[in-house]
């Protein structure tokens, strides 16, 4: 573990120290110096899921404060967008935000620009987009759950999750030729239509995948050691979650029934029947790490439900008929938010009437969810920071942009 320990002299700790006098021990004659330490976790720490540095201020094993330092992966996404020669060129960059679930990112961006252009995409495009976005959710959650198992010391579930993820990636690869960064959802349509055997393969996957969720539950979710490690740890109360702007499984884990697919429907999500899983505190308290974990497990079940409904109704049509030859929206602005696997992904796109965007601002769900970490971690043990961070499920590509 590359955890570096340094006795803190100045800086952040000075404020914390100011209020604390060394405690005098009776009979010892002199004061015993109790001093907080700063421990750097990351940027290369395996549990930070990327290049994130946490400055932990600890009193023994207890975390007094956490200061996250981000930006190691900053690559000027928003500046790049302003310098693109058209709106379509932004799509491959959007892929690289949350690179685990690239389809969901493209979905949000495509909707935003289509709203600016006031164009309607064909039904077939909508259905394929929803299927792909839900595939993305499954892929992202499988990674989240698998790596969370790794963080908690369970190696095997990770391999099982990766195995199931392959099945989804195979279907996506067959459709658009890429496995991770797709450039698939273009403004107004899709880059490729699905293959003729797409529906059969998707049905087969749904049939295959349902029992695998039960298998994951048996392996990890209801494992005694895992529950001991996560239940009752890192509790995020609902009102704090809302005030911090948390979204996605982090918000729902705290028991808030809030899902943009239901509460602020976009695309064609209002046509499908599905549930919004929320944390209920079955194993510990509402809003603990286990709740956030379990919300993701249930969401995968719901995603399979949506995919099954969508694939049955998939209409015929041309997926490229609505793609504009030249994208030049009128001057205006729009904020579009979609429910990605991580939470509310927002695109604030401002057009000044030219061919390239005046401003593209991303509201990354992980960025906002990560900002809750100091509030959750205060008072917990150092080892629990790993559990909390894993349960938030962050992707640094999206946080740093």
């Amino acid at each position, binding site marked *: 573990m590359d955890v570096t320990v340094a006795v803190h002299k100045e800086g952040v700790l000075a404020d914390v120290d100011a209020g604390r006098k060394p405690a005098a021990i009776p009979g010892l004659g002199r004061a015993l110096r109790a001093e907080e330490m700063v421990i750097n976790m990351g940027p290369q720490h395996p549990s930070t899921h990327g290049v994130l540095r946490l400055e932990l201020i600890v009193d023994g094993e207890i975390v007094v404060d956490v200061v996250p330092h*981000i*930006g190691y992966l*900053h690559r*000027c996404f*928003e*500046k790049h967008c*302003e310098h693109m020669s058209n709106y379509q060129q932004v799509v491959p960059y959007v892929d690289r935000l949350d690179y685990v679930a690239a389809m969901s990112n493209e979905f949000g961006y495509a909707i935003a620009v289509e*709203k*600016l252009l006031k164009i309607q995409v064909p039904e077939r495009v909508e259905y394929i987009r929803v299927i792909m976005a839900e595939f993305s959710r499954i892929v992202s959650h499988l990674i989240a759950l698998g790596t969370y198992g790794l963080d908690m010391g369970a190696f095997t579930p990770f391999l099982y999750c990766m195995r199931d993820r392959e099945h989804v990636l195979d279907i996506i690869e067959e459709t658009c030729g890429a496995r991770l960064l797709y450039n698939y959802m273009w403004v107004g349509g899709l880059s490729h239509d699905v293959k003729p055997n797409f529906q059969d393969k998707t049905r087969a996957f749904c049939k295959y995948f349902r029992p695998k969720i039960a298998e994951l539950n048996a392996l990890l979710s209801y494992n005694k050691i895992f529950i001991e490690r996560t239940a009752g740890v890192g509790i995020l109360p609902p009102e*704090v979650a*809302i*005030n*911090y*702007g948390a979204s996605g499984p982090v918000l729902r884990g705290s028991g808030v029934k*809030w899902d943009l697919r239901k*509460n*602020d429907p976009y695309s064609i999500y209002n046509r499908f029947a599905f549930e919004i899983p929320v944390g209920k505190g079955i194993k510990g308290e509402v809003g603990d790490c286990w709740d956030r974990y379990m919300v993701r497990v249930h969401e995968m079940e719901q995603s399979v439900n949506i995919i099954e409904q969508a694939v049955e109704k998939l209409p015929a049509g041309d997926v490229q008929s609505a793609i504009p030859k030249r994208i030049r929206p009128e001057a*205006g*602005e*729009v*904020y579009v*938010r979609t429910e990605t696997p991580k939470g*509310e992904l*927002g695109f*604030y796109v*401002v057009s000044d009437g030219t061919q390239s965007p005046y*401003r593209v*601002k991303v*509201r990354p769900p992980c*960025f*906002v969810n990560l*900002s809750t970490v100091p*509030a959750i971690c205060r008072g917990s043990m150092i080892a629990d920071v790993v559990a909390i961070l894993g349960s938030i499920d962050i992707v640094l590509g999206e946080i*740093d*942009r």
Partner: protein
Amino acid sequence: MIPQEIYDTLKGTFGEAILESKLDGVLDPWITIAPERVKDIARFLRDDERMQFDALMLLTGMDYTKGRLGVVYHLHSMKWNHKIVLKTVVAAEQPHVQSVEAIWKTANWHEREAFDMYGVLFDGHPDLRRILMPDDWEGFPLRKDYQVPEFYNGMKVPY
């Protein structure tokens, strides 16, 4: 509440501090407010029984060119399920805007980012420092007149 009602209520309560608005014919209706009253207006919008904007979806910095910077607030009420966009415009030489960190904690990092990228100074923010760029970076990269420096700490920047 529909945007017009929100505007009328704000105008009735804050009067002069509510500057312009565009409520019809746009995708997201917006209201421009005075930068020195942002905090009061935000507090009213969060706490008033009819408003209850409990969620700040997005806070973003803007460069409106001609020496003007801006901050845009996208608000949403989970209870009433209504939305409104607030905008405020400041001069680039003295870009002071009141911080809303005390009202919505989520603004903390968003305001740091707006400061990092545009140099907007949020008065009352507890920890206003760069968030994505290195601490010793010079200039504010998302401003439209930003020139990429030739060197950063002796390293060549453009390649």
